[in-house]
């Protein structure tokens, strides 16, 4: 290193040179050191900053996620008062992983058979020995069973919580609410119709509010079921509807099933007679015919006279009456005694074109308008809607609609003439009432009040009267198409008649005669009392005040009724 250097060039002194070199190295060293320090400080600062950030804004060990809001797996369904009709709860599920079982399989099978006797010991043993990886032993297990299964202490038995649909009111409004399958997908009723809304994460936190009032529904179901059992009917349907908004307050179809165990219900019980079943509803159509005739100017007064013989032979067919007049009769009398002959003549005067147009405007030729997907296809004469068909449709034969059609039609007839589709969702701020379309004039709607009140005060529907509630309506008894000896009896009514607010449609499928009906099985004897009792129960809940001094203006019809014809 200390090699001699030529002295020719004035050399820098060795010492100096060394010093200079050293300083240079030192500076470099300093720089490197500084750089390393900065890098180190930067890393530390980064860590510190991260820690500070985490301390200030970050998570911590005790944080619990996912429980800050109570959002059910599937949205609730509540009635118009907020009473829950369908809810999702956490239920226990007992499962089995056969490969994870470590204990004696025979013993385990015996214990399981004791705890859950729906399968026998051999089945459990076969399940335990099978190659499948998983079995459901029981879904929606009771807490006691879960506890006992847990006490077995077998790792192959899995206890899990699973969202499960519960219908607290059991069979109440079962056909409206519907039910879900095991995986929580709606398969009937509102559960089916609004499945997307109920299961969507964005909307399921808000319950779906139905227009059903569970108290009204219960009253209707109870009274209808009592009548159905009493008259040994195979089925029944009932609808109560607000005539101004089209809200369905109660809708039932009997027999009905328990949606908590929908699989156990029969096919008959799953069938919704109120919206899916179509029936020839008979004389309940007569008010429509009269209203159509009044609206078109065919009938100008309740006193208009028609010739009502014992039989009417038209187009090769004979029309009969249950209470034949065999004289001239007025429109008021035709309605009061439910005369087919008179109504057929009115319908004939009206003509097929106008009749069809009115029925179309009332929605009677289309599937019923409602949220449910169970909608029946109505039956009508269709292309061969001739003069005879016009007459029979005039008194409700040859046309088959659902009871909900009838309720919507009566609502349109009495709310001032506006047809509004029925709805099962509560009309309020977030669900406006559907837009109406005019079917009848307001004057016609007004005149019909006293006419239908007359049917209840003096005519065939006397048993439907609930004292003080001014029920008005029309009975209807139609023979079944496939067996003319079986009847479908209906009562379509409105109350209070002086200021109509609610429509009630009640139908019994194949009622039988009993001793106290003196062998009769027409609507006036079996469904009319149901209406009376139901209205007596629900009207105070709906805020309808009973008043025995109020009546619609009966002076428009009473002068045209000759009491002599009283039977």
């Amino acid at each position, binding site marked *: 290193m200390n090699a001699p250097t030529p002295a020719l060039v004035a050399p820098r002194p060795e010492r100096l040179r060394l010093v200079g070199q050293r300083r240079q190295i030192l500076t470099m060293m300093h720089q490197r050191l500084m750089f390393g320090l900065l890098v180190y400080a930067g890393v530390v600062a980064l860590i510190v900053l991260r820690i*500070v950030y985490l301390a200030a804004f970050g998570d911590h060990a005790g944080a*619990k996620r996912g429980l800050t809001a109570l959002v059910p797996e599937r949205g609730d369904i509540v009635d118009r008062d907020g009473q829950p009709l369908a809810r999702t709860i956490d239920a226990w599920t007992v499962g089995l992983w056969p490969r994870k079982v470590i204990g004696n399989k025979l013993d385990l099978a015996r214990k399981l058979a004791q705890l859950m006797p729906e399968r026998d010991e051999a089945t459990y043993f076969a399940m335990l020995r099978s190659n499948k990886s998983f079995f459901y032993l029981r879904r929606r297990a009771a807490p006691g069973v879960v506890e006992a299964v847990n006490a077995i202490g077998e790792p192959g038995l899995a206890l899990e919580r699973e969202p499960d649909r*519960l219908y607290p009111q059991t069979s109440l409004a079962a056909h409206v609410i519907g039910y879900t399958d095991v995986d929580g997908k709606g398969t009937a009723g509102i559960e089916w119709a609004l499945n997307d809304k109920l299961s969507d994460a964005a909307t399921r936190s808000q319950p779906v509010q139905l227009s059903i009032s569970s*108290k009204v529904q219960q009253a209707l179901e109870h009274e209808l079921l009592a009548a159905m059992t009493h008259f040994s009917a195979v089925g029944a349907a009932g609808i109560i509807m607000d005539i101004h908004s089209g809200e369905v307050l109660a809708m039932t179809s009997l027999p009905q099933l328990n949606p908590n165990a929908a699989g156990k219900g029969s096919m008959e019980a799953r069938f919704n007679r109120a919206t899916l079943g179509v029936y020839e509803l008979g004389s309940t159509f007569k008010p429509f015919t009269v209203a159509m005739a009044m609206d078109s100017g065919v009938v100008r007064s309740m006193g208009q006279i028609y010739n009502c013989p014992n039989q009417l032979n038209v187009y090769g067919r004979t029309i009969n009456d249950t209470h034949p007049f065999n004289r001239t009769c007025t429109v008021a009398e035709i309605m009061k005694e439910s005369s087919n002959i008179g109504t057929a003549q009115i319908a004939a005067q009206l003509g097929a074109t106008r009749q069809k147009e009115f029925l179309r405007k009332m929605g009677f030729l289309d599937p019923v308008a409602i949220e449910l997907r169970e909608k029946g296809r109505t039956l009508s004469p269709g292309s061969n809607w001739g003069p005879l068909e016009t007459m029979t449709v005039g008194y409700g034969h040859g046309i088959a609609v659902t009871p909900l059609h009838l309720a919507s039609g009566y609502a349109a007839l009495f709310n001032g003439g506006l047809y509004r589709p029925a709805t099962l969702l509560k009309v309020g701020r977030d669900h406006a009432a559907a837009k109406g379309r005019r079917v009848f004039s307001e004057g016609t709607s007004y005149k019909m009040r006293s006419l239908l009140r007359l049917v209840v005060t003096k005519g065939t529907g006397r048993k439907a009267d609930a004292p003080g509630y001014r029920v008005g309506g029309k009975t209807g008894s139609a023979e079944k198409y496939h067996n003319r000896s079986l009847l479908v009896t209906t009562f379509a009514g409105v109350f209070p008649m002086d200021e109509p607010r609610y429509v009630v449609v009640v139908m019994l499928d194949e009622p039988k005669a009993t001793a106290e009906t003196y062998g009769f099985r027409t609507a006036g004897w079996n469904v009319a009392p149901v209406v009376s009792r139901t209205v*007596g129960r629900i009207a105070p809940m709906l805020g309808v005040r009973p008043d025995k001094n109020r009546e619609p203006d009966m002076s428009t019809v009473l002068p045209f009724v000759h009491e002599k014809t009283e039977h």
Partner: protein
Amino acid sequence: MSARSFRSVFTVATCAGAALTCYLVSLNVASERAALEEVETKIVLAQRDIRLLQTEIGTRGRLAQLERWNVKVLALSAPSADQFLEGGFQLARLGRPEPKLNVEAPVVLASAPAPHPQPAPLEEGERRAAGAGATASSAAQLMQQASLKIPMREPVQLAVPIVGTETRNEQSVAKKVLAPANSTAEKSESARASKPAKPAPGKSAKAPETRPAQADKKAGDKKIVAAAKPVTKPVRTAKVDPLAPLPASANSKKTTGNSGTAR
């Protein structure tokens, strides 16, 4: 000098202290946040429990079950149309008070078995005239006696309220002069106050003719009059006693007056 040399130390200490404080604050915030989250979690859990319990209660007390209980046990039914009232007036009409004929009479009758039989029958009689029924047999006996004497006093008493003041003067005059005439006229029970009041002037004209014949009757009657006189006296003294008959007549007037205004 020393302070200057330690300056850097102080600076570092201050910085460290500030950083520590900041860290403590943030730690505090974080712990508060954690506590809040815990509370929120508790709230949600409580809500879930409430929901579960509500569901259970709703399921156990479902309407179908209530209906079943009602059918089997309670048997409640919907109110009928007659059970609804228009308003306060209709409600008040339902609570009509019991019609009171004469309240005071039975109260006085209770004290009827009086120790002094002489004034008692008269009092009883007077009350009997007011329309009260007797309960005790002894009292009834007393009253029968008294009822014989009723016609004597009654015109005097009842004529006062019904006939005007002028007729009252006339009556007093007539009575002084024609006491027997009155007594004969009123032997029948049916003779009422209005009757003697009207014929009074007519009889005063007849009076002079019959005057001599009345001497013996007068003597007999005077006893009655004397016996009747004490009747008026208790009436006066009775003003002190609230249960006495005179206030009774006054009360009856008042009540009729009141009911009249009420109607």
